[in-house]
């Protein structure tokens, strides 16, 4: 009897405690940010580094774009440029010498002035082989840069010079229309020499870092969050409305969506769970807009039968890209009939890929394969990922049904996949490319013979000559013409197979204002940054609206 009452008593006690716990839980109310304007942003994976020169990956770029500022800053409403640290500038008639006049009130977070010398230090550091920046090639446009990088010339010979404290002269190898676009990129931001030299690798830690952008880092917890607050010394501080940005580090797409849906985050970028797309797409908070990137397959042009351009053409002709993107993937991707995304301003493709099964069969026969079932089994290699598997399956099935080609698909873990690609150990391999700046050359580089990115084994002398000559063009029209001719060679030879263009997809709460694209009209009117950089300088939060939103959704 005693035993019974003891255990019954204990059980009841536990039950009551648990019940009390649940009853005491009530719905969370809107977090009290103390009347401050705080943007809660889901930023994706952990930023690999906060050193602008060494910048790597989108999550890091997003944070850096908000805490550093270069000579020019990006105009988020169209991806163009606006004055940044440089107030004014002039360009020489030959388009090779740029003189920038820095504003006197541009300051570092430690109170010191941002000087022309800071830019000299930063640009030289980017090309210093000892620093080993993977962004070094972006600077090759500067005079002597490639030679400096190969250590054939000294760092001092680089085409960047401080004429005085506030005047910076940049000399280019060749004139380049996209140079202003380059200057808005993170690696072109100045870095604080004294701090970098004092703390070495550790200079990007929150307690050491010195920056010059609209926000400054105050806290960073690995794989949790990075907190940036408004920088009171920023020259344009009156235009900055947000008091704080919290960048949450979360790499699981489902978790990101739950954070957004439970109102813990105001902004969600980089990866929406594919399973959620059917509902998300109808959501007014969802925005998908063109992104400077392409999803494509590499052909190993060193291997039979892929060494035959006609065979490669036949594969492209047999595809049905539109049903892949619209019916299978259903995430708003845009079928790619060219390598260069059509949204790149200043460019228009002259030749587009077509799809025609009859023509595909004819070309296959012409290539020497009248009976496609006799072609050896080809394998599509992709890095392990649900979407890549889906695409590979659809394409393999399509080629089997319309052409009779036997295609196997094979996944490999990321680094193994990269290693095999690099060593040409594949037939067809999945690949993706995000352009560095808004200019066709960032895509045309993919198949240039000497390019480190060319894993196809394809080499075409005519293409190489055209590609090299692009850099010497002063005339915009002529330049466009050359680029078109180069892309035409790709379309005709197909060392790689464009499949679709990615979109940048974001979810934004309605009370977050001034974040482009603000709505579907902005997308139609190209009011967005095709590099999708998430710059929050001009963003603000309507606190009244936010309150109402919380009340309604609760």
């Amino acid at each position, binding site marked *: 009897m005693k035993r019974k009452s003891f255990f019954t008593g204990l059980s009841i006690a536990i039950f009551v405690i648990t019940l009390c716990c649940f009853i005491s839980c009530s719905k969370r109310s809107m977090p009290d940010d103390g009347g401050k304007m705080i943007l809660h942003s889901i930023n994706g994976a952990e930023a690999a580094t906060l050193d602008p020169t060494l910048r790597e990956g989108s999550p890091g770029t997003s944070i850096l774009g908000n805490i550093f500022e270069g000579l020019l800053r990006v105009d988020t409403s169209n991806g163009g440029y606006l004055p940044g640290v440089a107030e004014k500038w002039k360009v020489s008639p030959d388009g090779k010498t740029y003189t920038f006049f820095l504003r006197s009130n541009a300051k570092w977070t430690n109170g010191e002035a941002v000087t022309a010398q800071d830019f000299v230090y930063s640009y030289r550091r980017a090309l210093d082989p000892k620093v080993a920046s993977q962004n070094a090639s972006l600077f090759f446009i500067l005079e002597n840069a490639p030679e400096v990088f190969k250590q054939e010339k000294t760092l001092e010979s680089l085409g960047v010079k401080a004429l005085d404290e506030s005047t910076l002269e940049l000399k280019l190898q060749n004139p380049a229309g996209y140079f202003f676009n380059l200057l808005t990129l993170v690696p072109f931001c100045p870095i604080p020499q004294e701090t970098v030299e004092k703390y070495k690798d550790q200079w990007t830690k929150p307690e050491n870092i010195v920056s010059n952008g609209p926000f400054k880092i105050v806290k960073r917890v690995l794989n949790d969050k990075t907190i940036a607050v408004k920088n009171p010394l920023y020259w344009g501080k009156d235009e900055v409305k947000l008091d704080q940005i919290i960048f949450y580090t979360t790499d699981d797409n489902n978790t990101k969506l739950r*954070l957004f849906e439970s109102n813990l985050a105001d902004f969600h970028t980089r990866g929406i769970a594919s399973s959620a797309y059917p509902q998300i797409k109808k959501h007014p908070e969802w925005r998908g807009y063109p992104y400077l990137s392409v999803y494509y397959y590499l052909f190993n042009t060193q291997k039979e039968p892929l060494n035959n351009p006609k065979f490669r053409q036949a594969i492209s002709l047999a595809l049905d890209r539109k049903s892949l993107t619209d019916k299978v993937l259903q995430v708003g991707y845009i079928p790619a009939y060219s390598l260069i995304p059509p949204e790149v301003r200043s460019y228009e493709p002259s030749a587009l890929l077509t799809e025609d099964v009859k023509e595909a069969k004819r070309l296959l026969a012409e290539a020497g394969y009248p009976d496609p079932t006799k072609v050896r089994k080809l394998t599509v290699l992709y890095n392990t990922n649900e979407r890549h598997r889906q695409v590979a399956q659809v394409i393999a099935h399509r080629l089997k049904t319309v052409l009779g080609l036997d295609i196997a698909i094979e996944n490999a873990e990321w680094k193994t996949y990269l290693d095999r690609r690099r060593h040409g150990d594949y037939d067809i391999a999945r690949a993706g490319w995000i352009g560095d700046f808004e200019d066709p050359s960032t895509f045309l580089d993919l198949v240039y013979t000497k390019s480190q990115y060319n894993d196809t084994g394809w080499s075409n002398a005519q293409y190489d000559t055209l590609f090299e000559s692009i850099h010497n063009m002063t005339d915009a029209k002529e330049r466009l013409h050359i680029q078109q001719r180069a892309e035409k060679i790709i379309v005709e030879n197909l060392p790689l197979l464009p499949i679709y263009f990615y979109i940048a997809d974001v979810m934004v709460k309605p009370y977050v204002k001034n974040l482009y694209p603000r709505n579907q009209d902005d997308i139609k009117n190209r009011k967005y940054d095709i590099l999708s950089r998430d710059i929050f300088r001009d963003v603000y939060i309507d606190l009244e609206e936010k309150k109402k939103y919380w009340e309604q959704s609760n």
Partner: protein
Amino acid sequence: MLGYIIRRVLGMIPVLLIIITITFFLMRSAPGGPFDSEKTIPDEVRKNIEAKYHLDEPVYQQYLRYVWSIVQGDLGPSYKYSDRTVNSIIGESFPVSFQIGFLAMFIAVTFGTYLGFIAALKQNTVIDYTLMSFAIVGISVPNMVLGPILAVIVGVYLKWLPVAGWGSWEHYILPVITLSCYYLAIVARIARGSMLEVIRQEYIQTARSKGLPERVILLRHALKGALLPIVSYCGPASAFIITGSIVIEQIFSIPGVGRYFVQGATDRDYTLVMGTVILVSILVMVFNLLVDIAYCFLDPRIKLHEKK
């Protein structure tokens, strides 16, 4: 006793060295390296980076260099997070995993044991069947299913608790519940089985026949014996649970150490993987030692003396 512990601790050193050696060479034999990415870096740059981390030296030399730095307590720099060392990464993330793991294990052991004992004492009644059915559910529903379900119901629909994140006490609740369910169910089943066995032992019957009250029999005599299998299960399990779970950390976005086992390996962040492997190895060995020590307190038949 002290001599025994010292001997065991000394015995860990060669074991650890073997683990380090195997892991080191296994990692190096995997294709690809820490600095491979889709945006290939020029060879000049790669050479510079590799020289900076001594990756250009012969493997045996790298191995010796690594072992020497471990002896000095330095786990090396992380290749992925260039401004951090492995020591600082583990130092920051292990306490997080430890807290969650400790709470989950505490709940699993206390509730699991308690419920298991109740089931045993009420064997073949509705209570027994109900509890054991729940235990089966707890074991068979993986936490990658349970976690998101809890997050959606409690976080998204009811908005009682945050769905993910780290920072306040509220952030502990869902991950701890998710993590503890499986262990709670296992402990409950072990507890039920061991209690059933113990209460049929002769010494319990002796106690009963002496007319001792049932409560004293259970708490003073049966409990100790019934705890043995639970202790031996919980030792190694604790080592794994407090070093984090990648599933829980991903679902609830927790900055714990669990993710680095997988991420470190996929990134070929050699030093980070080595660091996490060393951490788990040490913990497993320490917990096994603790289990052996606990045994001799719970079961008077077990002695830790050396065999003569």
